[in-house]
């Protein structure tokens, strides 16, 4: 992307006019600027919870004359203990973003054109209301759907509730699955999966799991990694990272094992082979708590012994037999070994197989028997919440109190496949689709079917703070508030061994005509005569809904608002200064304390996971895998079992590819802490810092191994064109030894077509290269193992 100073300045001016669609009014009101310049400069602090990613870090906002000037971490929030990440830091840049939408807008031209007519809120809500009314009147409530970016907040429940009350089941949440989520769902049928406590392990093996640069909670895990890295010099804790690219997780591990993308499950089973051969496995767990390990023709043991000897594993994964042997022996002889799968392994065609194999490895090596390593998430004291699910046979989405292990999958696994499900006839033709908190046309989905699908829906309503890549396909865009202007409640972070609720409260009133999604949904529901979203008649806002949900929490007497961990000495000092340790006799006090402290948590960790109480652990077997392949065929239409019989072992022979030619590579997109799923791109600080480590600021780069670069006579800083069958992008080459020679690492999160001036047309999106394949077992879209070719571009 060539941007000269002049046209950058021009761009600033033009997008300032165009994006707003109205006039060049900046997000920050003029009055505020005046106040900041001439005000009395009174400093205040407000507690809230970060909404940049689903991690739920507590934040402490510094206000001068009631105007927020900086975001810090909330020192008493248990998940982040006062620290935040760069994305959290940059929150105000989102709040004050000059391109924020200020008024509801109706698309002017055809679908796919980004030109807008501003309309009033009344008009917009009226239009939606009318649409909904029409659907309800004609008994076509199932023609209404909601594609919702799940930020792990109460709003997801609320939106699900809204959809249900409208009489529809088409609630499509979207988010990245948690660590181990796919594998443990298949093995023990539990969602959410048991949590783990990194503190307790003495051998951490991460299969593509990058806890440091993405969900579930980068701050929590960076903190923990810091501690573990320091203590491992004394405790001998080993941390091994298996991935094609040495991400931050690899850099901070004690060892990095290069592997071909998509073949991690094979390595896990290869290790299982060695462990079984050595007879050094957790016999007690296997015997008491598992099924399908042995006995029967197609059991786990037979499959592993037949298909996964080290030399075969080497051929598929590229990991030398010696390494497989060593890893397996080290891992199985550790006291509390812990293998995690997620991150890059989530986004491959073998996502579920890999995670299941890793779960099997855990079971085999005694991880599940290690004391305190695995934890049982304790449900919040507010009763069960319906879980969005998809039925793998009918393809129907619904909200259920509990998922059926045989037929259901968590809905967010497959929500990127909506257009495919539609074309397979499994989804009704929608009349109205709402989209909130997610930008599907930027994500690694099959773009064309999505565009077509969205074009076919007559009423696409999008809630957005900035015009994004999806907006051109929306008919109505409603300005939504940012997390700094609204009420919400973040839920306990999956995979973490304790419970917390983070309160989001408006740091400032909504700016420039934006409205909180919760309140808009409430107004729409009330307009339809649906008042049951709030049980109490007195409540009128989404904040009241949060209050209602919290009442049982208060009544249960469990947990406490965040509090300072204090020493007696400090407590004495506090008393001297006239402070009190708090108590809350009434709900009002509890609510006030939550606002003051930023949230609620249950001190102490989750209890140890008990295997007696749960379903037996099912090992992956060939028979089961092949059965699942048939059962879930609908998740991956046009893929997999079409031509004759499936290969005897698809997982050995299929997806792990090698580069075919001297100038070809396997594309391995990755996420960075500054950008995660692409939201960071709208904020200048994160745009600049996204290339902090490779020192390529504002640009999208490609990481190549020095040996390959040398052979192609490319050098650091060259411009390269990366070409696949699907498209091509031009990237800035970074020659680093932290990628395997077979892959080309490209960061995800840049190359937006919209999303405000700082993101628009800056950098490139590797998704343009990907022909999205789908993991047939989970429905997860894959972005690994795309064959790409590299050409040099003359500057």
């Amino acid at each position, binding site marked *: 992307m060539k941007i000269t100073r002049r046209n950058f300045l021009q761009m600033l001016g033009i997008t300032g006019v165009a994006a707003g669609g109205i006039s060049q009014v900046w997000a*920050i009101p003029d009055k505020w600027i005046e106040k900041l310049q001439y005000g009395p400069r009174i400093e205040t602090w407000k507690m809230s919870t970060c909404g940049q990613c689903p991690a739920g870090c507590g934040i402490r906002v510094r206000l001068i004359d009631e105007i927020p000037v*900086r975001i810090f971490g909330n020192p008493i929030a248990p998940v982040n203990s006062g620290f935040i990440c760069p994305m959290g*830091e940059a929150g105000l840049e989102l709040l004050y973003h000059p391109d924020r939408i200020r008024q509801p807008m109706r698309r002017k031209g055809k679908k796919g054109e980004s030109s807008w007519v501003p309309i009033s809120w009344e008009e917009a809500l009226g239009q939606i209301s009318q649409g909904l009314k029409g659907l309800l009147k004609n008994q076509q409530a199932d023609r209404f759907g909601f594609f919702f970016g799940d930020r792990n907040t109460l709003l997801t429940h609320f939106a699900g509730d809204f959809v249900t009350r409208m009489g529809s089941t088409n609630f499509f949440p979207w988010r990245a699955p948690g660590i181990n989520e796919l594998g443990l769902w298949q093995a023990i049928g539990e969602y959410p999966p048991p949590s783990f406590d990194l503190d307790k392990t003495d051998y951490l093996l991460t299969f593509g799991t990058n806890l440091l640069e993405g969900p579930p909670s980068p701050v929590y895990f960076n903190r923990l990694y810091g*501690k573990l890295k320091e203590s*491992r010099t004394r405790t001998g804790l080993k941390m091994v990272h298996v991935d094609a690219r*040495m991400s931050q997780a690899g850099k901070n591990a004690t060892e990095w094992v290069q592997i071909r993308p998509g073949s991690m499950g094979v390595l896990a089973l290869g290790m299982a082979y060695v462990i079984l051969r050595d007879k050094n496995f957790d016999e007690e767990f296997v015997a008491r708590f598992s099924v399908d390990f042995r006995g029967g023709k197609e059991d786990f043991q037979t499959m592993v012994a037949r298909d996964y000897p080290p030399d075969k594993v080497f051929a598929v994964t590229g990991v030398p037999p010696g390494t497989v042997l060593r890893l397996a022996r080290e891992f199985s002889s550790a006291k509390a070994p812990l293998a995690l799968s997620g991150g890059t392994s989530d986004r491959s065609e073998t996502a579920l197989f890999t995670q299941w194999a890793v779960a099997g490895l855990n079971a085999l090596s005694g991880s599940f028997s290690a004391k305190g390593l695995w934890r049982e998430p304790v449900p919040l004291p507010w009763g069960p919440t319906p879980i969005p699910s998809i039925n793998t046979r009918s393809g129907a989405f619904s909200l259920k109190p509990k998922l059926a292990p045989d037929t259901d999958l968590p809905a967010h696994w497959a929500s990127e496949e909506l257009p495919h499900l539609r074309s397979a006839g499994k989804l009704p033709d929608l009349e109205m689709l709402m989209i909130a908190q997610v930008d599907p046309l930027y994500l690694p989905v099959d773009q064309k079917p999505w565009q077509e699908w969205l074009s076919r829906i007559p009423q696409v309503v999008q809630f957005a703070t900035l015009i994004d890549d999806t907006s051109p396909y929306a008919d109505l865009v409603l300005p939504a508030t940012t997390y700094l202007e609204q009420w919400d409640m973040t839920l306990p972070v999956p995979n973490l061994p304790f419970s917390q609720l983070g309160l989001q409260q408006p740091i400032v009133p909504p700016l420039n005509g934006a409205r909180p999604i919760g309140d808009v949904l409430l107004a729409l529901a009330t307009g339809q005569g649906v008042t049951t979203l709030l049980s109490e008649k007195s409540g009128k806002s989404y904040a009241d809904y949060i209050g209602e949900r919290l009442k049982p929490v208060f009544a249960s007497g469990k947990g406490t608002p965040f509090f300072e961990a204090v020493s007696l000495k400090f407590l004495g000092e506090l008393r001297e200064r006239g402070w009190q340790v708090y108590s809350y006799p009434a709900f009002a006090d509890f609510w006030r304390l939550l606002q003051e402290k930023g949230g609620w948590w249950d001190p102490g960790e989750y209890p140890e996971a008990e295997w007696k109480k749960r379903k037996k652990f099912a090992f992956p077997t060939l028979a089961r895998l092949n059965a699942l392949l048939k059962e879930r065929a609908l998740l991956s239409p046009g893929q997999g079992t079409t031509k004759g019989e499936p290969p005897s072992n698809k997982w050995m022979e299929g997806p792990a590819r090698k580069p075919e030619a001297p100038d070809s590579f396997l594309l391995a997109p990755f996420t960075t802490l*500054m950008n995660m799923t692409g939201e960071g791109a709208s904020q200048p600080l994160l745009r600049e810092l996204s290339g902090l*480590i490779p020192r390529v600021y504002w640009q999208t780069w490609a990481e190549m191994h020095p040996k390959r670069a040398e052979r192609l006579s490319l050098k650091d800083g060259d411009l390269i064109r990366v070409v696949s069958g699907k498209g091509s992008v031009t990237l800035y080459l970074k020659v680093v*030894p932290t990628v*395997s020679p077979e892959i080309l690492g490209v960061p995800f999160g840049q190359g937006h077509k919209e999303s405000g001036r700082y993101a628009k047309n800056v950098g490139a999106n590797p998704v343009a290269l990907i022909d999205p394949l789908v993991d047939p077992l989970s429905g997860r879209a894959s972005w690994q193992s795309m064959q790409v070719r590299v050409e040099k571009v003359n500057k």
Partner: protein
Amino acid sequence: MKWGMVIDLQKCTGCGECVAACKLENNVAIVEPKESEMGRTMLWMDMLTVYEGEYPRLRVRQFPRPCMHCDHPPCTKVCPVRATYRNEEGIVAQIYPQCIGCRYCMAACPYTVKSFNWYKPEWAPGIRETANPDVSVRLVGVVEKCTFCVHRLQKAKEQAKAEGRNLREGDFQTACAESCPAGAIVFGDLENTNHRVNPLSRSPRATRLLEDLGTEPKVIYLKEVD
């Protein structure tokens, strides 16, 4: 009193939070992409990477790099107008209104920590106004660098004075130390034995960047040992 910083590389995960916190705390300008490509990105706190060995024995060392606040700073020696100087508490300070922009200090700094305002620093509309009010926004043509968040020291001193007590360890923390999730950055008075930095700076793992130059940096790194 001698303010100093200890960065434990065995703890540092290279997340870059210190860099982000520093940029916002000190109102460091974000230059536009074209400028950035030329190498004019302004980072008071930077993150450097060293690759050691080859796979499978490849180790990647990442380390945050603030200003070293040398006790014998090569930069202050050459400044023609005393726009950069070492104050009595050991902080190498910059006086922006004094700087003539000759960039001699930048050329003289062996750690390359200084940034220059090649153009008038620009912020997104609204962001400039809501920038940290405690730190002045720089003008075009002056050199800037990490100040150990000296504005926080001033505030902490005022606070301590108002409360009629001496400065305590936690009163003055730099933005990077305060925000480091891994707890790798510790800041304090190197001469005060009660401050954590004091024993840490005498750790056998303690090392300084380019120690042999005799600049006596007050940023001490604790080496990564595995």
